[in-house]
Each structure stands twice: as structure tokens, then as C-alpha cells.
């Protein structure tokens, strides 16, 4: 078993681009779900419109990279408005379903044959990252260090994406921190508990929910950018409901309604996933595990993801940072 590689990929995954992009999207979910109680199951759509906004602007319309970013941001904000207007009047469980539906509509349109010329069908779009990499201050090469025998290196372009990503995470966390301890955040949290009560106190519930949806959506869309830039491509199926489910896993893992919850959740999620993947597939390859083959090993780690999520919620429902008291209050 190649422990060096396993450890190296595992450690790298703690700060890698997946962690970054999922953390950003999860911060958005945390604003929606953790603080406002909006069961937004369409977060993947925010990532998708951002990624596609960038991709289509650059590849189809031939405009520069930064225009693509603006288009993506605007698209996310518009999506929030479009999704919000019909859904924000709904009860939490209805909202969940409608947001999934909305997100799926978007994914289906992106992957449809009818709009293949724009969105590229199920293959998606690629080749729009040049503008971003041109801004890369790191000269080509690998950067990193050896931790004992374990090499921890990132290519220059990866490092650039990660740098930008972590700065974005820091900024987003700061915003969430500031805003959630303010009266604005208090209104959101109150809405989570009982909308009518908040209305009776003279707050415009719809407007606050919308603000929350836009804020979380725009932050989530940053995750979509990072995806597009890190992979140099966008495919519709990456932005399916399963992605949103993983985001929820991360938020809960870290602890809902905690500033750093989603970030830590995302780090943990990927570390565990990569570690499991490395260990399992190595074990199969090395013949340590014989009852499954290499493909099944890939599936097995998702079995563990599911199991992990279950056990976590059963034994530490408040997540890593959460407050046990809060969970014990029966929300009904």
C-alpha cells in the first residue's frame, strides 16, 4: 500500500480546490438554511448559472474573462430573484421541493439538445479559463514542500485558484460573521423560527428572505466560478441535486448557523472522502481487500459518506461547532 500517496492526496485535499468550491457553496447554504431556515435545495443551480455564465460569455460570445464573472454574478442574483418570488411564500417543505425543481429545470435546460449551441448539451463547455490564468502571479512550476517523506505540491495554476478561493472564503466568513451578529441577522434567525411572529413585529419577512436568498446564492455562485476555473470546464451533471445534498452534509457536519461550520465541514468531507478513496482503492489494488473490485471500492466510499452522515446526525446532531441546547428545542 502506497501510504505516501494516500497521505499526500489526503492532506492536499484539506485545502484543495474541491474543498474551496464546496466550502463557498456551503457558506451560502448555511445562510439560507442555517440562519434563515430556508430549505434551499437548489444551491447547485447557483453554482451552475455562475459557471455557465462565465463559460458561455467567454466561449460563445467571445468576451473577456472578467465580463464572464460579472455575467455569472448577475445570473446568480437574478436566479435568486426568480426562484425567490414564487417560493418564498411557501412553507419550508414546499420550498425545498420547489427549489429542487427549479434547479433541475436549470440543469435540464443546460444539458438539453435544444440549447446545445449555447450550453453545449451534456458535454458542457470548456476552454474559458485562459483569462483567469493570465492573471496568475505564480510562474509555471510546482509549489509546496515535503512534510517528512510526504510531498505536498500544487501546480502553479492550482495554487492560483486556491489562493483566490481561500481569500473569497475568508471574505465570505467575515461578512457572515458581521452580519449574523447584527440585528439584520437576528431578523433572519427569527424568520427561521416563526414568520408570522416576525411579521407582527413590523419586519418585511419577504424582503429579508429575499436578501438572504440573494446573499447565499451569490456566495454559492462563487463556488461555481471556482469549479469552472479549476477544471477549465463546466458540465451540467456536476450541478445535480446530489451536489446540493453534499453541501448540506458539509453544513451539518460543521454545524449549522456557525460561521466556520461549512468551511470545516467541507474540509472534513473531502479529507475523509479522499482518504477513504485512497485507502480502499489501494487496498483493493494491493490485494488487501479481496471481496470487492476497484469499481466497487469507488462506490464503497460513498456508502461510507452516507453512513458518516447518518452517524453524525445521530450522535452529534449539532455538528462540530453546534450548540446541543439548540437542537434539543423542539421546533414544532
Amino acid at each position, binding site marked *: 500500500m502506497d501510504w505516501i500517496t494516500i497521505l499526500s492526496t489526503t492532506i492536499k485535499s484539506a485545502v484543495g480546490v474541491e474543498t474551496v468550491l464546496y466550502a463557498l457553496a456551503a457558506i451560502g447554504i448555511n445562510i439560507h438554511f442555517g440562519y434563515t431556515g430556508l430549505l434551499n435545495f437548489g444551491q447547485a443551480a447557483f453554482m451552475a448559472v455562475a459557471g455557465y455564465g462565465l463559460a458561455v460569455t467567454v466561449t460563445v460570445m467571445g468576451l473577456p474573462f472578467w465580463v464572464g464573472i460579472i455575467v455569472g454574478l448577475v445570473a446568480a442574483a437574478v436566479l435568486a430573484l426568480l426562484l425567490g418570488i414564487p417560493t418564498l411564500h411557501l412553507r419550508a417543505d414546499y420550498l*425545498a421541493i420547489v427549489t429542487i*425543481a427549479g434547479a433541475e429545470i436549470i440543469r*435540464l435546460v443546460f444539458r438539453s439538445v435544444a440549447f446545445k449551441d449555447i450550453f453545449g448539451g451534456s458535454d458542457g463547455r470548456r476552454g474559458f479559463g485562459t483569462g483567469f490564468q493570465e492573471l496568475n502571479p505564480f510562474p509555471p512550476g510546482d509549489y509546496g514542500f515535503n512534510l517528512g517523506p510526504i510531498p505536498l505540491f500544487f501546480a502553479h495554476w492550482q495554487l492560483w485558484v486556491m489562493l483566490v478561493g481561500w481569500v473569497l472564503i475568508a471574505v465570505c466568513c467575515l461578512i457572515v460573521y458581521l452580519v449574523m451578529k447584527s440585528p439584520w441577522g437576528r431578523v433572519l434567525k427569527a424568520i427561521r423560527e416563526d414568520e408570522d411572529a416576525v411579521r407582527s413585529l413590523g419586519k418585511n419577512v419577504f424582503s429579508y428572505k429575499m436578501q438572504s436568498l440573494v446573499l447565499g446564492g451569490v456566495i454559492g455562485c462563487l463556488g461555481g466560478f471556482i469549479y469552472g476555473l479549476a477544471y477549465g470546464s463546466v458540465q451540467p451533471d456536476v450541478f445535480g441535486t446530489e451536489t446540493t445534498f453534499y453541501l448540506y452534509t458539509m453544513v451539518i457536519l460543521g454545524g449549522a448557523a456557525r460561521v466556520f461550520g461549512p468551511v470545516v465541514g467541507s474540509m472534513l468531507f473531502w479529507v475523509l472522502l479522499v482518504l477513504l478513496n485512497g485507502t480502499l482503492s489501494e487496498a483493493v489494488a494491493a490485494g488487501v481487500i479481496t471481496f470487492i473490485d476497484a469499481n466497487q471500492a469507488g462506490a464503497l466510499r460513498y456508502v461510507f*459518506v452516507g453512513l458518516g*452522515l*447518518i452517524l453524525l446526525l445521530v450522535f452529534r446532531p449539532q455538528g462540530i461547532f453546534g450548540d446541543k441546547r439548540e437542537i434539543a428545542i423542539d*421546533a414544532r
Partner: protein
Amino acid sequence: MRRAVIAFTAFLGGLVFLLAGPAHAGPADCQGLRGTLTFQGQPVNGAKIAVTTESGQPVEEVTTNAQGAWDVQVEQPGRFKVTLDTATLPQNVEIRGGNNVRTPTVYEGNCSSVLYALQAKGAAGQQQGDSGAGQSTFWAQAAQLTFEGLNLGLIIALAALGLSLIYGTTGLTNFAHGELVTLGAILTYMFNVGFGLHLIPAAVAGVILAGALGYGQDRFFWGQLRKRGTGTIAMMIISIGVAIFLRYIFLIFFSAQTESFAQYTAQPGIEIGPISAAPKNLVAMGIELAVLIVVGIALTRTRTGKAARAVADNPALAASSGINVDGVIRIVWTAGAAIAALAGVMLGLSQNLKYTMGQDILLLIFAGVTLGGLGTAFGALVGSLVVGLFIQVSTLWVPPELKSVGALAVLIIVLLVRPQGILGRRERIG
């Protein structure tokens, strides 16, 4: 007289063609254009065909032989223009579509075929009357799609009923419900293909086993969670974990391939008026409807049914009324899982099996339940039928790959107007 001659030569020609058949096999030493003119199954002899190059340079002019065949060899590959002289066709015959010019390409070392479809002159109606025909095919297609919609809608309704039962009683939005559907299909597949049971007993066994597993799930898992006082949102997220867990377990054991049951695959359809349906679909729809109605009535009329709704409203109060809350929930889980499994079997019967089959329709199930109004059994039926119909019938206007978009959009629109769903009731305020 002439007819008879033609018929005879055609027969002979056919014979020759058949015998000569093998000559075609293998890389034919052929570089040019060829074709055969037939009218109502009979070869058309003596029709004139002119071949020119793309720019109009004449290449060759030929007439069809007794077999209706013609053949032009060319020296240089490229694009050609082929013109059929309509005047040389028999009097009552014309080219379908009217255009007598073809522009095929000849590739090096290969012959390209050229086709002229011929029809009786009077039959122009077929062409002209296109709009009329279009109308009737439109309605035929609409009818077929309506049937497909009902077929799908009933399957969704069945799955939705299971979901709605469990949601209605425990307040759990079960994202693992799709996997319960898959489970039923896979268990049945196991009995059917693995153990070689005929599909019908296999389905019975599968559904029963799935029901038992549903019971177990509640007894050893969800019930324990309830006991710990786990909240509904937490449970919902847990169900996501369960869904992922089960789905990948299926992947490991069932593999990612699409499979079908040993019986009733590719069952030929029978024509019923404008629609054609496989008998298996009709039987399945009958079973689905029966189950839906029976369970729906049981829920509103029987004591256990009412108790289930009471538990849904307020478990503590239900217990205070002397209802064995855990018992009721366990019954609901058993029934819900069994019904979901049955839906899985039906789905597998009509669409084949895959480890994601349940997950793939989960959203539609949710849409059905939501559209009808969360927690009402008949709402789930109505909502699902609407979803099913919309999905299929909308393809009259939208590309099929976007068919779910229509249904989901309807969901959103209905909820805009009726936030509580079609059959749902508004909550009282204050």
C-alpha cells in the same frame, strides 16, 4: 398483358437478384451510382435517368432495366446530379414529393444508392392532405402520450403514496424514498433473475420482503431516532445519508448496468384505438389503481388510518389518546415501504432497472406529493397524475429531453396560486 409480362420479368429479376446477392458481399468493385425503381412493389422498366456532374457536365443517361434497376459507373468520385425524367414513368405514377433531382456523392471505390419513391398520381391526396393527416396524427400522438402519462403518473402516484404515508405520519421528508423504490425492483430482480422465479411470484416475494425491511428500518433505525427526540429537519438530512448509503450499496451489488426482468421485456404492444400499449402496462395500471384506491380509503375510513393521521398531527397527544404511536408508525412504514417496492417493480417493468431508477424519479414523486398537497393521500394521487400527464403530453410541444421541465414548471406555477397544493388546506393563523 403488359402487366403480366412486367410481373413475370420482375419475378425473374428478383430471382436473379437473389442469386446474384452474394456477389454484392465483399468489397464490390463499384464506383458510381445505382438505384432501383419500384412502384407498389413492382419494378418500373424503361424510366430515363440522367446523371451529370455537380456543375452540369453530362456523365451518362440510362434507362431502368426489367428489374427496375439502373447503374452508372463514374471515373472520378464526387458529387453528382441525378435527374429522373418523369415523362418516362408509367402514366399513373409520379415521384413522391415531386422533386426529380437527387444530388448524391460518390466516394472512391464505392457505389452510392439513389432512391426515387414512386406513388400513384391520384394518391397526391396523401401529400396534399398532409394537414388533415397531420391533424389526425396529432390527436393520435396526443392520445398515446396521454396514455403514457397515465401510465407514468400511476407509477409515480404509487411511489408518492408510500412517501405521503410516511411523511403524513412521521413528518419525515424521506429523501431515501427513491431508494425504497429501487429496493423493491432489485429484490424482485433477485428473485426473478437470480433465483429463477417467474416475475409474478418474484414480485410478490420482493414486495413482502421490502415491507419487512421497511418494518425493520423503523424498528431499528427511525424509531430509535424518534426516541432520541431527533427533529424533523435532522431526520430529513439523515434520510439523505440513508439515500446515499443505500444507493451505493445497490451499486456495489447490482452494478451500474441497466437490466430487465426475465419476463415481459419488450412485450409487443396491442392497438387499442389510437394508442398502442403492452398488456403488461394495462395490468400494471390496474394493479396500481386498485392499490391506490384501497389504501386511500383505508386511510380515511379505518381506525388505523385515522390513527395514522392523528399521529401525524401530534404524536404526544395521540399517545395520550391511547394510540400506540410506535405501532402505528411501524404499520405505516411497512405499508409505505411495500407500496414503494411495488412501485419499483412497476417501474422496472415499464422502464428497466437501474440502481438509480428510484432516485431518478424521486423528484417527480416529490412533485406529485407536493402538487397534491403534502400529507394527503388522494392529493398524492391527483398530483402524480398531473405530473405524469404533463411530462408526457408536454412533449407535443417541447423537446422530449425537456419534458420534466414542463412538469416541474407546472409545480411551481400551481404553488404560486395555491401555496398549499391542489388538495391541501390552508393553516389557520393566530
